């Protein structure tokens, strides 16, 4: 090493070299640590060869071009040519720059301009001009390359840009193994690598693998048994056919497609309002179930609206490109977000059908692939002519209501149950009333109306003190308002405050609120302060935030009536985005009781202050109100008793007239918390039924503007900076559009499906392969460009692409089910997944497929499976999104929106909707359903081609403790005890097979039984724990089963649902 710049510590240099090699050989993003050691081992094996790096021949494409791209193109690339030097094209590069010196002199590195500049000591001379100098290893490679003659091969057309033609399956040595062409390609490679395929997996494993791959659901025990019994030659293929015909097939594949389509139920960005898009999701499910040919599937989604006499379904399909985000934040520039949506359409369409990273050319010509910035904007022009804006959800179209009978039936049966409970509760009322009367005897008038000294409306209303001690707001009716009220209290101890809101003829609809349409109000925050008793007056006046004035905290609030999602407690939760309201019971008196967290003692005559905030807007402000205080400590006595009732109560029961008795009973009915709870629930379900009957359903669609919009290049991607005008067109490296066709979205969609197009068929079969094997033949399934990874089996990829594009005598072109069937019928697919040292060492990621696929299931599948094996799953297909149990207040904590938009609180679904498949879960972009996010589900803000598969402790916590998994474990336990044979050994095996299809080994079974016995003993010592554990979930509790055994089986169920094998497709 005579060259002086190689001063690096030689070890460091070695490490760098090794990293380079590792990088080259294993460009695998590692989502699990399981793989590190292999790489360390591989690294150790490679050390020997790295010493030879200096002597080996430098390869331009592999070694030199990446340096140019990374470090030089910014100034000497396709967009900028500082000093006239351009390094991305051979002819330009060899000429050198304006200086006239050639880039290099072959064989003479020391005299070459390139070499001199990258090693220069002169800060004005050294290249790259920006950032750190090149690394020693890079300089070394440049020197070696020049000295070896500076070979710069003519650029070959990138493999993915040539049209695939069907190769002949290769000859193999083990002729008995291949079942079809796929196997020949796979085996030929294995034989080359001296690997042999693994034996076929056992039949139970195969049916589970097939069911999970084709429907996303595990097989039922009956299905497993039937398959195990069926020894016919056709058994396997029959099974495949049955699964491909299952309506769950379409759901499972749709979920995959929805990641590409970035389907979501919300608009995105900060405000993230809800949108109605489920009809598009339904379209995808139906299209896939009907096995709609992929060309039609494509055309309808990209341009369904432009088809002649487009049907409703075709218009809905065009929603594919309305899954873009829209920004509802005030002050946003609509045009900015519209152009962002158009760019997203370019990126998504290119990634989904072409496997191209076209968005790289938004700001400058693509650094790696032949896509000029102008070509980017020509592609953009196809999508730049629709009428949607950067905000809102228009245009959208009405769609017919989905069947809601199941939901209605559920609501009605729940109503029947509640009504029974209510009459049960009513029967108990007289007894309860006696207890209550006893408890409040002598305490029927615990409230003292406060004497007001001052009342200010910061919004500018006029507040008048009426003779009954109430305040009436008149005059200015501002959008928002805050009342600041001061009063003196005659009490020396305050435990709670009563806020009465009162009707008044001067208020809209008789009040009690000031909102014109209903007389409603929303009390966002109710606060109380007091001067501390010892404080002298002056101390309070230093600034607005006196230390003498202290805040009193309310710990609890109850009200006689609460609107759904606007509960009394919201007025005292210190969250100005939530509040108390009274819809639909307007025009009458209501009250709220706020209890202090600790009693406030003071001198009589102490000043107290109140603050009532109404931030909601639209004049949702209280119109008339009265404040009272109490020192009463028994919460039962806080419920106000109207004077006539109090009079009756003063009489002994025997002395009351029937009318008086009726009055008291009627009053007590309003006091009983149980009755109130049941009535509110009945009210809610009635409303829900009405809502279902009146729901309007819509879906977002593409709609072309009548006046075409002109498209310009956006300089550096900035929508405000317009460059040259462009017309719609496709990149020159790909076949041209039909000359006689109007260049619009329809033409583009048809062009994508032309048989000359080299990419669409390859990209699509690669995705199907990826679904099944975990990794595509091209690992970078979103990038078939030069920076993507080359295919592991290029000929197999082309063979499959041609099979898909051209069809065969037995299958039409673009037949998705046909390709999937080919794949799962192969011997390659049927191998077992066990791995040995040789396979692990040679092929850690199973790219060569000398063993069966084995990888963790997707987020939704893990949940679906837990529901399925426990018997909870509601297999209903389609319809609007549902809201399974989610952590309470998750949305609120992050401050999403005010309640009026209905997105402030997760509106947990009723009954069967809690157990729908994961793909129907309401998908909110800014706050993905937590357990799904933990298992790597994307937010769906952009097109996602493949999800990562991480393996983290947060996942363990989710599947251990997420209520849905606990509920599934409980219901699984009921299933074990109700349906399984009654001995722990057999019950354990039954449960194991429910989850994993295969029989447990004897040690697996014994481990489960010993767990069961251990737990049973534990619960016998602590039966209360069993009761607590069994509270999980709303699904039916079978009361006839022994709770201790049930709890013990629930623990076993929880364990089974958490096994690595359970959450893995194996």
């Amino acid at each position: 090493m005579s060259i002086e710049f190689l001063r690096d510590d030689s070890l460091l240099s070695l490490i760098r070299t090794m990293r380079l090699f590792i990088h080259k050989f294993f460009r695998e993003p590692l989502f699990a640590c399981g793989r590190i050691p292999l790489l360390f081992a591989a690294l150790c094996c490679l050390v020997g060869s790295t010493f030879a790096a200096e002597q080996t021949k430098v390869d331009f494409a592999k070694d030199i071009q990446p340096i140019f791209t990374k470090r030089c193109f910014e100034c000497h690339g396709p967009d900028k040519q500082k000093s006239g030097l351009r390094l991305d094209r051979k002819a330009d590069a060899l000429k050198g720059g304006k200086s006239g010196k050639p880039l290099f002199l072959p064989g003479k590195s020391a005299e070459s301009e390139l070499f001199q500049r990258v090693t220069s000591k002169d800060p004005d001379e050294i290249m790259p001009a920006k950032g750190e100098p090149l690394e020693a290893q890079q300089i070394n490679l440049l020197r070696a390359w020049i000295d070896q003659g500076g070979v710069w091969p003519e650029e070959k057309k990138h493999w993915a840009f040539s049209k695939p033609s069907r190769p002949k399956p290769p000859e193999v040595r083990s002729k008995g193994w291949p079942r079809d062409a796929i196997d020949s390609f796979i085996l030929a490679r294995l034989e080359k690598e001296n690997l042999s395929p693994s034996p076929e997996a056992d039949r139970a494993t195969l049916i589970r693998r097939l069911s999970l791959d084709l429907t996303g659901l595990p097989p039922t025990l009956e299905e497993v048994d039937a398959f195990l019994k069926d020894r016919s030659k056709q058994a396997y293929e029959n099974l495949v056919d049955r699964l491909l015909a299952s309506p769950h097939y379409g759901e499972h594949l749709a979920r995959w497609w929805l990641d590409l389509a970035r389907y979501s139920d919300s608009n995105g960005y900060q405000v993230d309002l809800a949108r109605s898009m489920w009809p598009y999701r339904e379209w995808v499910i139906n299209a896939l179930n009907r096995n709609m040919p992929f060309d039609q599937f494509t055309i309808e989604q990209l341009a369904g609206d432009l088809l002649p006499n487009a049907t409703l379904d075709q218009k809905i399909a065009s929603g594919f490109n309305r899954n873009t985000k829209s920004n509802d934040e005030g002050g946003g520039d609509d045009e900015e977000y519209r152009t962002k949506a158009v760019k997203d359409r370019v990126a998504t369409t290119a990634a989904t059908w072409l496997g191209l990273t076209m968005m790289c050319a938004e700001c400058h010509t693509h650094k790696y692939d032949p896509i000029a910035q102008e070509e980017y904007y020509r592609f953009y022009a196809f999508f730049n002519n629709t009428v949607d804006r950067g905000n809102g959800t228009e245009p959208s179209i009405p769609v017919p209501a989905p069947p809601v009978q199941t939901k209605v039936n559920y609501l009605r049966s729940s109503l029947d149950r509640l009504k029974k409970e209510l009459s049960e509760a009513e029967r108990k009322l007289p007894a309860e009333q006696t207890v209550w009367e006893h408890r409040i005897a002598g305490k029927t008038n615990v409230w003292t109306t406060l004497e007001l000294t001052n009342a200010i409306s910061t919004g500018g209303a006029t507040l008048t003190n009426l003779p009954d001690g109430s305040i009436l707001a008149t005059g200015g009716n501002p959008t928002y308002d805050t009342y600041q009220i001061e009063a003196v209290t005659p009490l020396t101890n305050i435990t709670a405050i009563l806020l009465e809101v009162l009707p008044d003829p001067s208020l809209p609809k008789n009040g009690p609120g000031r909102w014109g349409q209903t007389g409603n109000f929303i009390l966002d925050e109710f606060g109380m302060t007091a001067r501390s008793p010892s404080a002298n007056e002056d101390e309070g006046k230093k600034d607005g935030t006196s230390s003498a004035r202290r805040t009193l905290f309310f710990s609890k609030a109850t009200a006689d009536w609460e609107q759904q999602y606007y509960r009394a407690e919201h007025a005292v939760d210190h969250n100005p985005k939530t509040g108390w309201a009274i819809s639909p019971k307007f025009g009458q008196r209501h009250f709220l009781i706020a209890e202090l967290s600790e009693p406030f003692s003071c001198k009589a005559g102490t000043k107290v202050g109140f603050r009532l905030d109404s931030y909601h807007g639209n004049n949702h402000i209280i119109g008339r109100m009265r404040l009272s205080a109490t020192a009463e400590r028994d919460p039962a006595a806080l419920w106000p008793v109207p004077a006539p009732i109090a009079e009756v109560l003063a009489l002994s029961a025997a002395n009351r007239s029937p009318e008086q008795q009726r009055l008291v009973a009627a009053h007590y009915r309003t006091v009983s918390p149980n009755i109130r709870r049941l009535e509110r629930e009945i009210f809610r379900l009635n409303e829900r039924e009405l809502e279902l009957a009146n729901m309007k359903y819509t879906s977002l669609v593409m709609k072309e503007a009548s006046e075409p919009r002109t498209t310009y290049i956006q300089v550096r991607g900035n929508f405000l900076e317009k460059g040259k005008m462009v017309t719609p067109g496709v990149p020159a490296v790909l076949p041209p559009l039909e000359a006689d066709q109007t260049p619009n979205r329809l033409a583009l969609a048809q062009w994508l499906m032309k048989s000359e197009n080299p990419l669409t068929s390859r990209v699509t079969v690669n995705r199907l392969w990826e679904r099944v094997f975990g990794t595509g033949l091209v690992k970078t399934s979103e990038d078939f460009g030069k920076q993507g990874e080359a295919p592991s089996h290029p000929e197999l990829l082309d063979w499959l692409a041609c099979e898909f594009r051209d069809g065969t005598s037995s299958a039409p072109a673009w037949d998705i089910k046909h390709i999937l069937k080919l794949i799962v019928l192969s011997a390659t697919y049927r191998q077992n997944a066990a791995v040995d040292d040789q396979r692990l060492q040679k092929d850690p990621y199973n790219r060569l497929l000398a063993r069966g696929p084995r990888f963790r299931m997707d987020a939704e599948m893990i949940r679906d499976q837990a529901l399925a094996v426990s018997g909870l799953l509601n297999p209903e297909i389609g319809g609007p999104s549902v809201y399974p149990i989610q952590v309470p207040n998750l949305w609120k904590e992050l401050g999403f929106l005010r309640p009026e938009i209905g997105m402030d609180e997760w509106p947990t679904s009723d009954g069967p909707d809690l157990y729908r498949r994961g793909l129907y879960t309401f998908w909110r972009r800014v706050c993905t359903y937590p357990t799904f996010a933990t298992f790597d589900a994307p937010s769906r803000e952009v097109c996602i081609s493949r999800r990562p598969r991480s393996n983290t402790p947060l996942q363990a916590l989710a599947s251990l403790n997420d209520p849905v998994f606990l509920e599934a474990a409980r219901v699984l336990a009921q299933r074990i005890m109700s349906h399984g044979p009654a001995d722990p050994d057999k019950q354990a095996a039954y449960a194991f097979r429910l989850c994993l299809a295969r029989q447990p080994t004897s040690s697996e079974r014994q481990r489960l039984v010993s767990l069961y016995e251990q737990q049973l003993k534990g619960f016998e010592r602590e039966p209360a724990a069993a009761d607590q554990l069994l509270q999980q979930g709303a699904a039916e509790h079978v009361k006839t089963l022994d709770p201790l055994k049930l709890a013990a089986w629930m623990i076993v169920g929880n364990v089974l649902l958490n096994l690595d094998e359970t959450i893995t497709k194996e």
Partner: protein
Amino acid sequence: MNPSPFEQLNLSTRRKFFQQCGTGMGALALTSLLKTNLFAAPAKESLAGTPIGPHFKPKAKNIIYLFQSGGPSHLDLFDYKPELIKRNGQQMPEEILKNIRLAQIGKNAAVLGTNYKFKQYGKSGVWLSELMPHLSTIVDDVAFVQGFYSEAFNHDPATLFMNTGAQLAGRPSMGSWFSYGLGSENKDLPAFVVLATGFGQPLTNNAWGSGFLPTVHQGVSLRSQGDPVLYVSNPPGMGQERRRQSLDAVRDLNQMRYDVLRDPEIATRISAYELAYRMQTSVPDVMDISKEPPDMHEKYGTTPGRASFANNCLLARRLVERGVRFVQLYHRGWDHHGGPDGNLVFDLKKRCLETDQPTVALIRDLKERGLLDDTLIVWGGEFGRTPMMQGKMTPDQIGRDHHPHGYTVWLAGGGIKPGIVYGKTDELGFYAVENKVHVHDLHATILHLFGLEHTKLTYRFQGRDYRLTDVAGEVVKPLLA
């Protein structure tokens, strides 16, 4: 001393593994596997792209980022502009507004001077308003970056820009880059933790998302209500002992399957479950501030059990002490457009009351514990506020609009030069004009303090090597100690 359950697992599994494969390869595999910290993954990740750091000797080990969400008014807190007061009520000079897009106000909005008194403090003579009385006592520890600027003027893109270096969702957040680049110092807690308080503009979780980085790097949001980490608590009736027993069964059964299949992923799953078990203790433990001595609560102004920015400051110190690399606090409610829930009088004062004391208590506390030298503090919002008024000239209506073109961010500790003022805005506090620091520059500088060269911390996604600093960013050398 008895080995912990996890150590026992280590021993037993490792022994089994040796027996099974008997090759150096296998032994190497499982040994490093079980030592692997699942929240920290620098070594393996480096194989996925360009080598990862630290690239050189770091100055800071931890960072506490105090994100003031909504856009605090630099003009009422840090950036004293007599000229603004002089021109109060006048029109803005036309040439300043020529190429400006404004969020909500029009271009004819009048100049608004500040109502708050400013004084000079410390050796740098920085001007601070009366709203930050605590901060004024530690200015010699602080570097004020007064020529800071960003690009986006709406909350969501601006917040994403500050946190991910891009205005559109989908890029990894700064904390995720740290986790990816440096891993975690604590094997029982995540490397990147987020704590949020306050009300106002919503926060979207992609501000701490991992974008295209593996989700193991995403910020774990510790909640102040319910479980601090989702599902860290066992359901009633489960209890730690029963949980341990069931996890023993999970481990044994996974081990049995591993014996048959030998898929390393199963071994990873075994350790993930063990770490989950440890988190069930370590997370509630770190979150329990009630054990802090009374004087600590007095200094910070904390009340155990009631969510507040003060509580989160104290939590931040506890997390950093335990080796959590990146702690990000969000405090919402700085969006003061004017109006009853966001004005420059009541609401700005309230925010300052909520944050000033605990922020300074945190810095003092870190200093007293010798942690400030390697803990970087960053204070700032997604933008500042306009020199022009929004709303009306009444206490509850007065406000300013969003303003990214020049505002203040301040830093302390962790290798930052203390006691300086760097850069400035023009005389109206509109544009950053001198020693300007862009969002990408701040990111580059922060990474630099942690021994990371921002151009080399990259991740390959969709055919491109992405960085936190996109294609820009310069380390701001004058800010370094």
